[in-house]
C-alpha cells in the first residue's frame, strides 16, 4: 500500500503541530547561533499552510506539497522560507500525478527535496545546516526502499531516524553557512535549528503513515 493525499495532509498537519509544540525550543536553539526567529517563522509558515489546505483541499500528494511550497516561500521569510519552499516544490515535482506513492517514488521525492535545498542554499554536508539532517535521511530512505518489500512506512521511519541523528551530529560542527557561520569556533557545541526542524518534519511524515 502506498501513500495517498490523506497521508500528505496528515503529514503537513503533524508538521504544523510539531512546529507549534517546538516553537520555543527552535527559538532557543537559534538564539546563540542565529537570530532567534526560526521557531517563530516555521510556526507562522505552517499555520498558513493549514489555512491554505482548509481553503482548497488538494487532490493529490503532489498538489498538497506544492501548495505547502508556495505558502512557505511566501510566508516564512529568512533563509528557511526559500529553502523549505524549494524542498517541497522539488518533492512535488518528483511525485508527479501519482495518487498512490510507492517506496521508490517516495525515496526519489525525498532525494529531490534534498537536492533542491543544496541547489538553493549551496551548503554541503558538514556545514552545520539542514543538509546535515537531509543527506543521511535520503541515504537511509534509499536503502530502505531498496530492501525489496516496498513498505513506505519503513522508508519514512528510516528517514526520520537518520534525520534526527543527523541533527544531533551538527553539535560539534563548525558552521560554514548562514548566520551561524559568523560565530566561527563559537558555533561549535550548538545544534543547528534548521536541522532540528527538518528532523521534526520528517518525523511527522513517518507519523502520518502510522
Amino acid at each position, binding site marked *: 500500500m502506498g501513500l495517498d493525499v490523506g497521508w500528505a495532509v496528515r503529514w503537513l498537519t503533524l508538521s504544523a503541530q510539531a512546529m507549534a509544540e517546538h516553537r520555543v525550543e527552535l*527559538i532557543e536553539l537559534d*538564539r*546563540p547561533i*542565529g*537570530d*532567534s*526567529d526560526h521557531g*517563530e*517563522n516555521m510556526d*507562522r509558515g505552517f499555520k498558513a499552510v493549514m489555512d491554505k489546505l482548509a481553503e482548497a483541499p488538494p487532490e493529490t500528494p503532489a498538489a498538497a506539497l506544492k501548495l505547502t511550497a508556495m505558502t512557505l*516561500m*511566501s*510566508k*516564512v*521569510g*529568512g*533563509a*528557511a*522560507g*526559500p*529553502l523549505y519552499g524549494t524542498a517541497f516544490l522539488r518533492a512535488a515535482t518528483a511525485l508527479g500525478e501519482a495518487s498512490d506513492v510507492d517506496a521508490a517514488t517516495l525515496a526519489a521525492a525525498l532525494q529531490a527535496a534534498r537536492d533542491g535545498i543544496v541547489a*538553493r*542554499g549551496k551548503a554541503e554536508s558538514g556545514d552545520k545546516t539542514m543538509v546535515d539532517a537531509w543527506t543521511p535521511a535520503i541515504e537511509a530512505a534509499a536503502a530502505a526502499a531498496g530492501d525489496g518489500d516496498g513498505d513506505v512506512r519503513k522508508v519514512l521511519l528510516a528517514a526520520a531516524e537518520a534525520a534526527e541523528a543527523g541533527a544531533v551530529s551538527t553539535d560539534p560542527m563548525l*558552521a*560554514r*553557512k*548562514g*548566520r551561524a*557561520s*559568523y*560565530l*566561527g569556533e*563559537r558555533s561549535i557545541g550548538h545544534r543547528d535549528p534548521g536541522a532540528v526542524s527538518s528532523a521534526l518534519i520528517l518525523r511527522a511524515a513517518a507519523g502520518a503513515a502510522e
Partner: protein
Amino acid sequence: MKKLINDPKAVVDESVEGFGLAHADLVTVFPDPKYIVRKDAPVAGKVGLVSGGGSGHEPLHGGYVGMGMLDAAVPGAVFTSPTPDQILPATLAVSSGAGVVHIVKNYTGDVLNFETAAELAQAEGVEIRTVLVNDDVAVQDSLYTAGRRGVGGTVLVEKIAGAAAERGDNLDAVAAIGDRVNQNVRSMGVALSACTVPHAGVPSFELEENEIEIGIGIHGEPGRHRIPMENADGITDRLLDPVVSDLGLASGDQVLLFVNGMGGTPQSELYIVYRRAAQKLAEQGVTVARSLVGNFITSLEMQGCSITVLRLDDEMTTLWDAPVHTPALRWGV
C-alpha cells in the same frame, strides 16, 4: 522584557501602520502583503529602487523611501528577511518601464528571497539589477562563511544610487554606481549590550557588565571577539583601524565618515566616537569631506555603534549632496 508594544506578534504591523500615518505626505503603506512605496511612484521614466530586510533596523529601510532615495521598502518580520510575495508587488508598484534595482544586504535569507522575487519580476517583464551590499569587515573568513554582511554602507548605497536614479541615470548606470559605493565602503560595529527580539522575549546574546563585542552584526550576530570594556577612544580605534586598512586608505583620500548608533546609544556618545575617528583620519592625511552621525541602521535597543567609511570621488560626492526628501533623511529641499 519592557517594551512599548501591545502584542509581540503585532509589532511590525502596528509600527508600519504608525509610520504610514506619520509620513502620509511622503509614502503609501500597503498592509498585506506589507510594503512601503513613495507617494508618487511609479515616477515616469525613472529607474525604481527597492530595498528591504528584516524589521528592527529602523529607520532602515522604510525611512529612506522618498524623493532622491528609495521608491519602495519591504519590511520583514523582526530580523527576518521579507518574502517574495512582498518584494514582487513592491517591485511592480515602482516599475515605470525603466527597470528596477534591488538593493540587498548580504544575508542568506535576504539574498534567497530577493533572488526568487527578481526571477518572478523578470517573468513579468521587469528588468532587475541587484546591488549586493557587503561592507562589514568584521567577517574575516568570507570563504568559509556566508560572506561579509551588509551593514552601515547600505544607507550610503541607497542615498547615492537613489540620487543617480533621480537625475535620470539608466538601469545599468544606477546599479553600477551602487556597486561602486559598495566597493569603496567598509564598516565595523561594537555592541555594549544585547537587544531583545519581541517574540523571543529574552536578549539575543549575553554580555557581562564589563564586556563588549567587537565586530557585532546588526542582528546581534557575534563579531570578531569579546573584550573588556574600554573608553570611547580605545573602542573607536578598534573599529576604525580595520576599516581603514581594509579600504586601503591613503593620504590625500577624501571620505565620508558615518558614525551610526545601534539604537540605544545617545547622540552625544556618537559624537565622542566621531571626534576620535575624525582626528585619526586627519592624522593619516585623509580628508573627511562629508559626515553623517546618528541612528540610521539600528539593532532594536542595542547599545553600541558602527563606523562606516566611504572613499568618495567627485561623482559620489555630488550624488550624496543631491536633494533628498524621505522620513529619515532630508536636505536640499
